[in-house]
């Protein structure tokens, strides 16, 4: 009954084709039992279904052959309804890096029919996480990207990642036009819901204060049929970053629960089994969780579309051993576990090891790879976990490699430098004036042909940037200024809007972008609890297309699919990269909060004392008055006596008058 997955699964003619799950079956389990378990599994995972199957399901307490047949019919029906085109790929991409680190990228790609986002019917979600579908549907999101990252990807040493990410949290979303609610309120609720889902403080991003809509940098990733492609206005885009965000296991746990093969507890199937030991994953130099949802074409003609949900975990681990120039790692040393079982829901479970270092290092990898492919000049070896011979066995990978002494180092350094490197830093002396400088370095190979860079910077309002100080010069020669092809600048507003700067630059040389800024003295209640820590300026984003014939390019994701299988099979990569610079920590002028009492007391006393005198001095004119004539004591007594008499008289009159009035009233 077990049938291997193949590409033909997504051909449409599989109406009667029953696709069984491949469970790791204990011997005692009968087929009926297995099916029943499967049924429950689906019911639990997908919630309400379109037909009545689940209701029937719970009644099946007896194992009768009739019922068995019936269940099979139900399953076939479910598949007929929803899941003929669903596909789930698991991939692990491993690249040993020249610094002694190793880059591991776990990729989980789910492709489903876009019908699940339609709101008028009850759905069977199958492989797609229901929560995500709910969030996306209710907020009218057409595509989104979210990443949570700890550490910094070192482009100059490690080359290009498959998908880059800035330190902290990054999120952007395109919203569907023509919905009832406006984009801002939808963005707010979307971010809140996603933040709750991932246990990240994304709720700080909801307002306009930290959100912007770039013009050129974040175009939609969806690939839609030509007919429905139209230029989308950037008012439907929201982009926000949170450089302060710390990523930890509390983010990983909800994230991995969205994967199809993650069961309760820690008994995950397939490559998701590598996520069991969460603390191990955080013992890394770089750690990045990512999730992308978009639409892609079903076929090359692009007559219909599919939803693609891509989730990835990228880590960079220091794998040097105690011996010099010697590296070694195993799955157990990196992830704390091996791949125990394959996930039968996946249609692809591949492990790729990129041996770009093989020219300088001697590798020793066990077990033997299934096959190898060549991407450009780089050999890549592949392990297919769905292979027949690996069934029911634990898969583990051991690798050790050593630097060969024979190769001269200088030559190698040059060749492996990536095509484009970004370096950004804060400048300035004192707490009032500052500046930001961004170096964009191109390597020799890239300098041969022109490159178009889109530079995007979103700066919080408390750093006031000045456009007139913007200077783009060559890195080698700071006198030649370069004029950007396009410049889009939205000045920020205090407490309302961040500064947004976007440049499109065409260049053949390394460039230096610099501008100056002024720091704002915040109100005392606007400081965070740790004001002396500093304030973050989010990473700058540089998007560009690298020329496809560049030798030093690393494996990048293709625009067609997040799944690496596709980018490896296509001969030339699209070369689209998005680089993130360092985020900066800058100190704003901070009052001494540690002794507010002293400050307040002293300040108030000084003001109170000075105020009276100053006020008198400025408003009144002082003159010497006439001296009063001296009145003798007897005279004063006399005066007093007269006053008392007069007062008594007046009182008596008043009493008399009121009596009279009362009498008139009575009469």
């Amino acid at each position, binding site marked *: 009954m077990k049938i291997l997955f193949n590409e033909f699964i997504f051909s449409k003619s599989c109406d009667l084709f029953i696709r069984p799950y491949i469970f790791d079956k204990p011997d005692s389990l009968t087929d009926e039992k297995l099916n029943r378990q499967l049924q429950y599994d689906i019911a639990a995972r997908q919630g309400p279904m379109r037909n009545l199957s689940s209701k029937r399901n719970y009644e099946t307490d007896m194992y009768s052959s009739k019922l068995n047949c019936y269940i099979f019919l139900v399953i076939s029906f479910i598949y007929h309804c929803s899941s003929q085109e669903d596909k789930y790929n698991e991939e692990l991409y491993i690249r040993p890096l020249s610094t002694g680190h190793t880059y591991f990228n776990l990729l989980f790609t789910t492709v489903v029919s876009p019908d699940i986002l339609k709101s008028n019917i009850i759905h069977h979600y199958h492989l797609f996480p229901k929560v995500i579908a709910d969030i996306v549907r209710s907020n009218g999101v057409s595509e989104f990207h979210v990443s949570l990252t700890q*550490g*910094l990807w070192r482009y100059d040493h490690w080359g290009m990642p498959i998908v880059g990410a800035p330190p902290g949290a990054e999120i952007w979303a395109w919203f569907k036009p023509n919905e009832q609610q406006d984009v801002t309120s939808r963005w707010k609720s979307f971010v809140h819901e996603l933040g709750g889902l991932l246990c990240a403080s994304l709720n700080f991003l909801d307002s306009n204060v930290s959100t912007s809509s770039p013009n050129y940098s974040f175009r939609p990733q969806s690939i839609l049929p030509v007919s429905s492609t139209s230029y989308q206005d950037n008012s439907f885009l929201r982009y926000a970053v949170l450089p302060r965000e710390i990523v930890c296991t509390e983010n990983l746990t909800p994230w991995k629960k969205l994967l199809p093969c993650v069961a309760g507890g820690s008994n995950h199937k397939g490559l998701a089994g590598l996520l069991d030991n969460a603390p191990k994953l955080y013992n890394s*130099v770089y750690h990045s969780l990512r999730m992308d949802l978009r639409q892609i074409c079903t076929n090359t003609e692009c007559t219909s579309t599919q939803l693609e949900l891509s989730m990835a975990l990228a880590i960079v681990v220091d794998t040097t051993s105690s011996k010099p120039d010697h590296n070694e790692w195993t799955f157990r040393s990196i992830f704390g576990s091996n791949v125990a079982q394959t996930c039968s829901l996946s249609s692809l479970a591949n492990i790729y090891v990129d041996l770009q270092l093989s020219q300088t290092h001697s590798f020793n990898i066990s077990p033997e790879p299934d096959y190898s492919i060549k991407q450009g000049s780089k050999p890549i070896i592949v392990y297919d976990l769905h292979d027949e011979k690996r069934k029911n066995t634990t898969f583990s990978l051991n690798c050790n490699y050593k630097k060969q002494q024979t190769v001269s180092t200088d030559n190698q350094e040059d060749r492996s430098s990536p095509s484009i490197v970004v*370096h950004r830093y804060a400048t300035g002396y004192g707490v009032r004036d500052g500046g930001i400088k961004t170096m964009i370095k191109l390597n020799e190979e890239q300098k041969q042909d022109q490159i178009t860079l889109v530079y995007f910077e979103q700066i919080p309002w408390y750093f006031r940037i000045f456009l007139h100080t913007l200077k783009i010069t060559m890195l080698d020669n700071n006198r030649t200024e370069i004029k950007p092809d396009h410049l889009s600048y939205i000045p920020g507003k205090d407490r309302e809007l961040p500064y947004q700067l976007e440049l499109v630059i065409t260049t053949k040389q390394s460039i230096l972008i610099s501008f100056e800024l002024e720091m704002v003295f915040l109100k005392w209640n606007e400081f965070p609890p*740790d004001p002396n820590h500093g304030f973050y300026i989010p990473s700058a984003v540089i998007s560009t297309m690298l020329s496809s014939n560049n030798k030093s390019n690393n494996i990048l994701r293709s625009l067609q699919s997040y799944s690496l299988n596709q980018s490896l099979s296509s001969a030339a990569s699209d070369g689209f990269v998005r680089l993130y610079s360092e985020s900066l*920590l800058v100190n704003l002028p901070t009052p001494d909060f540690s002794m507010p009492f002293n400050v307040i007391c002293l300040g108030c006393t000084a003001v109170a004392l000075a105020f009276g*005198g100053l006020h008198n001095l400025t408003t009144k004119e002082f*003159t*010497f008055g006439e001296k009063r004539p001296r009145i003798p004591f007897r005279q004063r007594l006399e005066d007093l006596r007269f006053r008392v008499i007069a007062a008594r008289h007046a009182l008596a009159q008043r009493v008399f008058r009121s009596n009279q009035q009362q009498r008139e009233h009575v009469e």
Partner: protein
Amino acid sequence: MPLLSNLLSRDIPKNFYKFQFQLYSGLFLLGLLGFLYLTSPIVSRRTYLSENALSPGLVSSDLYISVEHIRNIMGRLRTGFKNNDIADVIQLMLNENGIEAYKQDIGRNSTDKPEENIYGIVRAPRLASTESIILVAPLYARTQTKPQQNKANVFGIAHTLAIGFALHRKPYMSKDIILLFPAAQEYGTRVWLDAYYNSNPQASLLDAHAGSIQAGLALEFPYEKFYSIDLRHNGINGQLTNLDLINTVVHLCEKNSIATTFYGVYVELSTNEAFMNYIIQSTRTLLLNVFTLATGISNGVHGQFLRYRIEMITLFGSLDKHHEYQSSPVAMRAFDDVIEGFIRSLNNLLERFHQSFFFYLHINRRNFVSIATYMVPLGFIALPALIRSLVIYMSFFTSSSTNSAATHGRTMKFDAEYSPIFIEIFQCLAFSYVLTWIPLKLSLLGVCLITMLLSPFILRRFRSNVHQFDHFQFITLLIGSALLGCLSLLNFSMALLTACFLMPCYLIAGVIKLDHWFIKFTCRFLFITFLNPLVFLALYHYLAQIIMAGTFVFPDFAQFSNDLDTYCASYHLYNTWTVDVVCLTIVPIWLLLYRSTFGIQF
């Protein structure tokens, strides 16, 4: 002022005029004594760690750096220094251990070889390179005995490197560590900082940065062994490091039983030490504190960092033994523990140093005087100037009310001619302004002597009457007290010394309405000789020499002129404003006092 207009001079008791001189000099002396009293245990406070985040790093050490490893590094460094390719050697060693290393050309050729700063960055795994700690080991360190002589800082560099290697790839590091090896001490450091912060438009671009630098440590070890550590914390223009940072280092040193000193003065804190000894040593530390801070230059490379609000001190390996039983030098292991503990404390810090004190004077390593206490003696010293100006001001009313019939309201109607007064002030200022430029060109001493003595003759002869003299006094007193007020907040030590100089000047100048020609002549002679700024400078230098040596030494004029010359040559390098303050405020006030006092025509 209407508020004060009721206070007329007739309200002042008659006896006050008689005892004015005694009162002023009494207050002055009270201030001086009060300042010395700061060393008493009743006034000074014991140090403590205000920032709790610093404490966990003080507990245990985790690194093990073998002595062989350090000896090996030192051997390689020594050959590097011998072959004059130390920059390459350090860079190679950093690269071998997987630490990114860069060079910066500082382009100053003292001989014919271009000099280079080397720096490496140990990247921390926990953070995205937003914050960093810096360890500085200048390639050459000044020796203890002869400040002009430089020796290779092999020990300091070796330990900096060893710590960097050991902390590389440690999972708990959350701040990058910058290892900086500046070539030409202060100059190299300044060039590197200018480039790092790009504060100077001509600065070259650095290849790598590591976020905002939080704090750090500089290591200067001219000898390959040491018996005690001298902590140097003087910054530029009287800036000081945060007290918490110093306390951390002192605490770590005491834990590893390394003796620490300030200005080479060791204060024994054990109870069986004689109290008198404690007081004498503490007073020495206090006075040295004031004397060295007043110059405005720092005593190590850390001063340049304080300018950028990077808290830092210099550890200097000293050959002085402070215990009789101490026979062997400090173990390397103990020293490494100090640096490791320091870095781990800083690594744990979430915010910049902002707690504890920035204004303090050290009595010894465990006691200090805070700003609230040490301002009081200065207040006493400066009080006579304020009282005197008030008295003069009040006397204006009586004198003017006799002249003009009525003073209406706010309008002050003193019948004084202002123009000669202001012309005189401008003249003196212009003359002093010329003085500021002279030290750059010529030897300061000769030129100063000539100008000081010639100035009365060069400038137009000044004549004033008694009435104008009062106005003059009033204005100079106000300028003086304003100057003291500003200085006391910027550089307390300098303000104290300025007050010690200006107050006697005021006293002599103010109370000289002397009729007898002999007294007048004597005072004038005193004023021009003993109260000459230059003489005061020499006196200050001599006193500092005595206190630094701890015993009596004879005045050495050659040393004084030599020190003055080196100071003037280097003060621009440090971004100090001491010379400007002296030349633009203190000298003009002195000149004004002199000319107004002795130019009166009766």
